[in-house]
C-alpha cells in the first residue's frame, strides 16, 4: 500500500469534517445575522414602544442566546477533534470521541435522512491510543453504510469493554440501495490502520462490523 494513499484518505476525512463544520458555522452565523438584523429592522420601524413589541424583541434575543450556546457546543466538538490530532497517542474517553464525530457529521447524516444512534457500555475506561485514527476507522464504516442505506434507515454504534479490550460495532438497520459512489477508505487502508492500533476486525454478518482495540496501545501484548 502506498504511503500517499494512507495520508490522502485521512486528509480526505479531515477535509470532510472541516467542510461540514464550516457549512454548519455559516448557517449559525446566518441565523445570528438575521436575528440581529430583525431587531435592527424593528427599531428602525419604531416597533419598540408597546409591551407586545418588547416581548417580540426579547424573544429574538433569547433565540440569539440559544443559537450562541448551540454554536459553542458545536465549536467544542471541533476543538476536541483538533486536540485528538496533536499527539500520535493520548489517553482519552472513546465515547466522547465517538460523540464528537457524531456531532461533526450530523449534517451529512441528516441529509441522507439516516439516524445515527449510540448504544454505549456504561463501564468504558479511558483508553490510550490514537483518537484520530479510531475516529477515521469509525467514519469509514459509517460512510460505507451512509452510501448504501436508503433514507429512514439507522446506523447504531455499539461499544463493549472486556479483558483490556474495547469493541466498537457498527450496525446498519434498513433497506439497501444500489450505489456506485466511492468510499474514502479502501479495505487495505482500513486493515493497515487497525494493525497500527494493535487491533482486529470481525464481522458477525456481511454488514455488521466490529473493531476490537486494546485499551492501551502499549499494553504487553502490543509491545513489539
Amino acid at each position: 500500500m502506498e504511503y500517499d494513499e494512507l495520508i490522502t484518505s485521512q486528509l480526505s476525512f479531515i477535509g470532510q469534517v472541516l467542510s461540514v463544520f464550516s457549512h454548519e458555522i455559516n448557517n449559525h452565523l446566518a441565523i445570528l445575522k438575521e436575528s440581529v438584523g430583525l431587531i435592527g429592522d424593528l427599531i428602525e420601524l419604531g416597533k419598540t414602544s408597546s409591551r407586545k413589541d418588547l416581548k417580540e424583541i426579547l424573544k429574538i434575543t433569547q433565540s440569539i442566546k440559544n443559537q450562541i450556546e448551540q454554536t459553542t457546543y458545536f465549536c467544542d466538538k471541533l476543538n476536541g477533534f483538533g486536540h485528538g490530532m496533536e499527539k500520535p497517542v493520548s489517553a482519552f474517553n472513546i465515547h466522547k470521541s465517538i460523540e464528537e464525530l457524531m456531532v461533526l457529521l450530523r449534517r451529512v447524516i441528516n441529509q441522507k435522512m439516516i439516524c445515527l444512534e449510540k448504544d454505549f457500555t456504561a463501564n468504558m475506561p479511558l483508553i490510550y491510543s490514537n483518537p484520530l485514527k479510531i475516529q477515521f476507522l469509525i467514519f469509514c464504516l459509517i460512510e460505507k453504510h451512509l452510501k448504501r442505506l436508503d433514507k429512514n434507515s439507522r446506523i447504531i454504534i455499539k461499544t463493549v469493554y472486556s479483558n483490556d479490550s474495547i469493541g466498537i460495532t457498527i450496525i446498519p438497520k434498513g433497506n439497501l440501495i444500489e450505489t456506485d459512489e466511492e468510499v474514502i477508505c479502501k479495505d487495505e487502508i482500513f486493515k493497515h490502520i487497525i494493525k497500527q492500533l494493535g487491533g482486529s476486525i470481525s464481522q458477525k454478518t456481511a454488514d455488521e462490523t466490529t473493531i476490537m482495540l486494546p485499551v492501551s496501545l502499549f499494553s504487553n501484548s502490543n509491545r513489539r
Partner: protein
Amino acid sequence: MGKKKDIKVLLVDDEIAFVNTLAQRLRLRKLLVDTVYDGEQALSYIKEMEPDVIVLDLKMPGLHGIEVLREIKKIKREIQVIILTGHGTDKDEEEAKKLGGFDFLRKPADIDLLVRKIKEAFSEKIERAMTAIALAEEGVFDDARKIMKKEE
C-alpha cells in the same frame, strides 16, 4: 396605471430558525413570503402555487438543492431561483447557472443584497413575459416560446 404587483417569494431551507427570521425581514420589506423546509415540500408547493422567485438552499435532508432546481425548471421554468447556501462549491455554482439559476449567494448574505437580487430576478421574469407576449401577438410563436424558456 395598474397596481404594482407584489413579489411572491418562496424560501426553501432546512434551518427553520434561519428561514423564519429571514421571512420576517423580507415581509417587513413588502415582499410576500412563504417558507418550506426541504426540496420535496418546495416541489409540492410550486405545483399548487406560483411564486415569482425561489430562494433555495443546497444541502438539505433528502433532495439536494441542485436536484430541486432541475425539477423546478422542468415544472415551471419561468420561476426565478436564487441559490443561498452555506456550503456552495464552485461546481455547484456552475451547475446552478447551467440549469438556469438566477444567482448564487453565500450565507450569511446581506439582506439588502438579497432583496436587490430578488427584485432583479423578478424584473427579468416580467420583462421576459412581456417580450414573449409581444412576440406572440405578432405571431412569432417560436421566438416567444424560446424567450419563456430562456433559450438563446
